[in-house]
C-alpha cells in the first residue's frame, strides 16, 4: 500500500477528510488595547528545540501586547528540584511554570486553575486537544474539574526502522510484537545489524515506556479497580516476560540493551548498528541530522508501534503543560501569553518551519493537517490515531515511587539474574506498602 493510500484510509477511518488549512488570522482572543504593556513575565522551561522555536517567535507576542516574556532555561535533569523549591517556598520567582505529567501530581499544587480564564477567552479545550493530553493537565488524577495548564508538548510512540534494510530483505514493519521478534531474527541472520534497540537501563523510568505497551496490550494494568497493584497479575507476568524475552530469550536486541537508556538506543540506531527502534516521535530529528547520525533521511522509516495480536495498539503518551504560578502577581498577563502561545497557528508554524525538523504537536487540528502530514510522511495521522487509544501516565500521588520500583525491577530482570514472577510479586508487595501511606 502506498503511503498516500495509507493516509487517505487513515483519514477516512477517523471520519474526517483531509483538513485543508484555511489561512485564518490570529485566533487568539487577546485583550485589545494592550492593557498589560510593559509587564515582564518569567517562564521556567527546559531547552528543547520546540521551546527554542517558541522563544524565537516572542517578538510577535511583544508587538501584539507589549508584554515581555523571559524564557528562563533550567537544566532538564534538575527541573523537579527547582519546582519543588518553588512549591515549598510558595514563591513567585517564575510567573509561568512547565511540568511534565510523569513528575507526579504533587507539583500540580503550584498552579492556579484556569477554567474561568479559558471560558473568558472562549478556548474549547476538548476541541483543541486529544483526551490523552488534556487529562494530564487536569487535577484529581486526570479526572478533576480544574484545568491547570495548556498542554504544550506531548509525545506519541512510533517504531522507527531502516527502510533500506527492510526493502533489501523484503520485510514489512512489524504489526505485532511477535512479528517484531521474527523480523529481528531475519535481520540478524542476513545482516550484521541487531534486530531492535531496546532500553532496559534504569534512567528516569525510560525502561517502562515500551513495557506499558506490552502490559496494556495484554490486558494487564498497573492498579486494579480497588487501587491495588495489579501488574503482577498473570497478564502482567506474561507481558513482562515477553518484554524481557526480546533480549534474554530471543536475543534480537543488542546485548548492551540491558544497560541502555533511551538515548543510548538512539545512538545505536543512529550509528547504523540496529534495524528497529521503538521510541517517541521526536527522536526523528536526531536520526536524520548528519551531525548526530550516520543515517540519511531516506533510510529512516516509521510505523505505528506494534501491538498484541488481534488487539488495538494501546500506546503510552506523556504530556508537558505550561501553567500559571499560583503565587504570581501577573496572572492576567500570564494568561495573555498562554492564549497566544497555545494557538494552533503557532504550533503549526513550528511544524512547517523548514529550518527545523520539529515534529512535536499536541493539538488535534494540527495532527490532522494536510501540510504537516505531507511534510512528515503521515507521522501525525499515525499520532492522532495512536492518541485515540493512548493511555497517559498514571496520575496517582505515589506514582513516582511505584515507577521507581518498577524501573528498578525491570533493569534487574534484564540482567537475567532474577525471574519475572517472583520479582513482580516482590515489587507488588512493596507497592502495596507504598499505596497504604
Amino acid at each position, binding site marked *: 500500500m502506498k503511503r498516500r493510500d495509507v493516509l487517505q484510509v487513515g483519514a477516512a477511518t477517523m471520519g474526517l477528510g483531509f483538513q485543508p488549512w484555511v489561512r485564518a488570522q490570529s485566533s487568539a482572543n487577546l485583550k485589545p488595547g494592550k492593557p498589560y504593556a510593559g509587564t515582564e513575565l518569567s517562564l521556567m522551561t527546559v531547552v528543547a528545540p520546540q521551546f527554542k522555536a517558541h522563544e524565537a517567535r516572542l517578538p510577535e507576542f511583544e508587538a501584539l501586547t507589549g508584554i515581555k516574556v523571559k524564557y528562563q532555561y533550567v537544566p532538564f535533569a534538575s527541573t523537579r528540584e527547582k519546582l519543588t523549591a518553588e512549591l515549598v517556598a510558595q514563591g513567585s520567582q517564575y510567573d509561568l511554570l512547565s511540568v511534565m505529567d510523569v513528575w507526579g501530581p504533587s507539583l500540580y499544587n503550584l498552579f492556579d486553575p484556569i477554567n474561568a480564564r479559558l471560558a473568558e477567552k472562549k478556548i474549547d479545550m476538548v476541541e483543541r486537544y486529544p483526551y490523552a493530553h488534556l487529562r494530564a493537565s487536569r487535577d484529581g488524577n486526570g479526572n478533576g474539574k480544574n484545568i491547570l495548564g495548556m498542554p504544550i508538548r506531548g509525545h506519541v510512540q512510533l517504531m522507527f526502522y531502516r527502510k533500506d534494510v527492510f526493502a533489501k530483505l523484503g520485510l514489512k514493519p512489524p504489526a505485532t510484537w511477535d512479528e517484531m521478534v521474527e523480523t529481528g531474527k531475519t535481520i540478524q541472520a542476513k545482516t550484521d545489524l541487531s534486530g531492535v534497540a531496546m532500553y532496559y537501563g534504569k534512567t528516569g523510568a525510560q525502561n517502562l515506556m515500551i513495557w506499558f505497551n506490552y502490559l496494556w496490550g495484554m490486558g494487564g494494568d498497573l492498579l486494579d479497580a480497588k487501587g491495588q497493584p495489579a501488574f503482577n497479575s498473570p497478564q502482567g507476568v506474561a507481558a513482562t516476560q515477553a518484554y524481557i524475552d526480546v533480549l534474554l530469550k530471543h536475543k534480537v536486541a543488542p546485548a548492551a540493551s540491558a544497560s541502555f537508556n533511551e538515548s543510548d538506543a538512539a545512538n545505536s540506531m543512529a550509528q547504523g548498528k540496529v534495524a528497529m527502534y521503538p521510541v517517541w516521535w521526536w527522536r526523528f530529528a536526531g536520526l536524520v541530522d548528519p551531525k548526530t547520525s550516520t543515517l540519511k533521511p531516506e533510510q529512516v522509516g516509521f510505523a505505528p508501534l506494534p501491538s498484541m495480536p488481534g488487539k488495538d495498539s494501546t500506546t503510552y503518551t506523556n504530556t508537558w503543560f505550561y501553567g500559571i504560578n499560583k503565587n504570581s502577581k501577573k496572572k492576567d498577563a500570564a494568561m495573555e501569553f498562554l492564549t497566544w502561545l497555545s494557538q494552533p497557528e503557532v504550533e503549526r508554524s513550528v511544524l512547517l518551519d523548514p529550518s527545523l525538523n520539529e515534529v512535536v504537536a499536541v493539538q488535534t487540528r494540527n495532527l490532522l493537517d494536510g501540510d504537516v502530514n505531507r511534510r512528515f510522511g503521515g507521522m501525525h495521522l499515525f499520532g492522532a490515531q495512536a492518541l485515540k487509544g493512548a493511555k497517559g501516565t498514571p496520575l496517582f500521588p505515589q506514582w513516582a*515511587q511505584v515507577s521507581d520500583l518498577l524501573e*528498578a525491577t525491570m533493569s534487574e530482570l534484564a540482567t537475567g539474574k532474577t525471574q519475572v514472577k517472583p520479582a513482580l510479586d516482590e515489587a507488588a508487595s512493596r507497592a502495596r506498602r507504598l499505596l497504604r501511606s
Partner: protein
Amino acid sequence: MVVLRRIPVHWLLLAPALFFVAAMALFPLGYSFLLSFREWKLARSVTPGDWVGLENYWYLLTDDPDFLEAVKVTSVFVVSNVGVTLLVALGAALLLHRAGRINTFARVLLILPFVMSPALVGISFRFFLNGEYGIVHHLIGLAFPSMVNTIWLADSTLSMVAVIAADVWHWAPYMTLVMLGGLASIPKETEEAARVDGASAWAVFRDVTLPQLLPVISVVLVLKTVFALKAFDIIYTLSNGGPGRSTQTLAYFVYETAFNYYNMGYAAAAAYILTAVLLVTSGFYLRLVFKK
C-alpha cells in the same frame, strides 16, 4: 579596647568562624531536624504536616526494605572506596616522593581529576563503559578477551566496581597530594638514622615513616569516609542507582525520597540516621586526635 582584653584570646580567634557557621547553619539544621519528626508529603500539602514523633525513624529502621538495602550498599561502597583510595594514595605518594622530571610531571597532574565536576566524571565513565562504543569497555575486551561481551552496567557487581572506580579516580589523586604533604613533613633524619642502623626499606617504612604519617592517614580516612557517604552526583550520573538498586546508596536514597517522592519528613529522618552514624564514628576519631 578594654572589653576585648577581658575576653580570652581564644574566643576572639574562634569567633568569626564559629559565629558564621552557627548563623548560617542553625536555621537549616534546626528546621530539617525538626522536620524529621513530622510527616510532610508534598502531594498532600504545601506546608509541613503533623508531628509524628519517632514514627519516621521507626519505619525506616524496621519497615523499609529499600532503606535497609541502601544501608548494605552504602557499607560496601564506603568501605571499599575508602580502603582502595587510602592504599592508592599511600602507594602513589611513596612512588612520587622523590625528585625527577617524570615524578614532578605526575605531581602536577594529581589535582586534575579532583577539579572535574563529579557529574562530568560520572557521565564520562558511563560512556567509557558503554557496550558499543566505550573506550574502557573496548580496551578491557582487548586485554581480557573473555570480557568482550560483558556489559558492565548491566551487572550489579560490575556496576558497583565502576562506581567505586569512578570515585577513586576522582579523589585518590588529590589524597595522594595530601599524603605527599605528610611525607614531606617527616624529618629526613629519622629515616636516615634507621637506615644507617641497617634497617631494611620495609622496616624503615613500617617503624619510622608510617607512625609519623598516622595523623595524615587519619585525616584522609575520615575525610574520604565523609565524602564517600555523601557521594551522590557521581552515582546518579553513572549508574542511576542501578541495575535494580545495587548501587543505590543512602545519599541517593535521601535525595530520591526528598526530590522524587516528595516525602520530606521521611527524607529528613533518613538523613539524620546517616548523620548519627557519622557523629559516632567521628566522635571516636576526635578522641584520638585530641589525646595528643
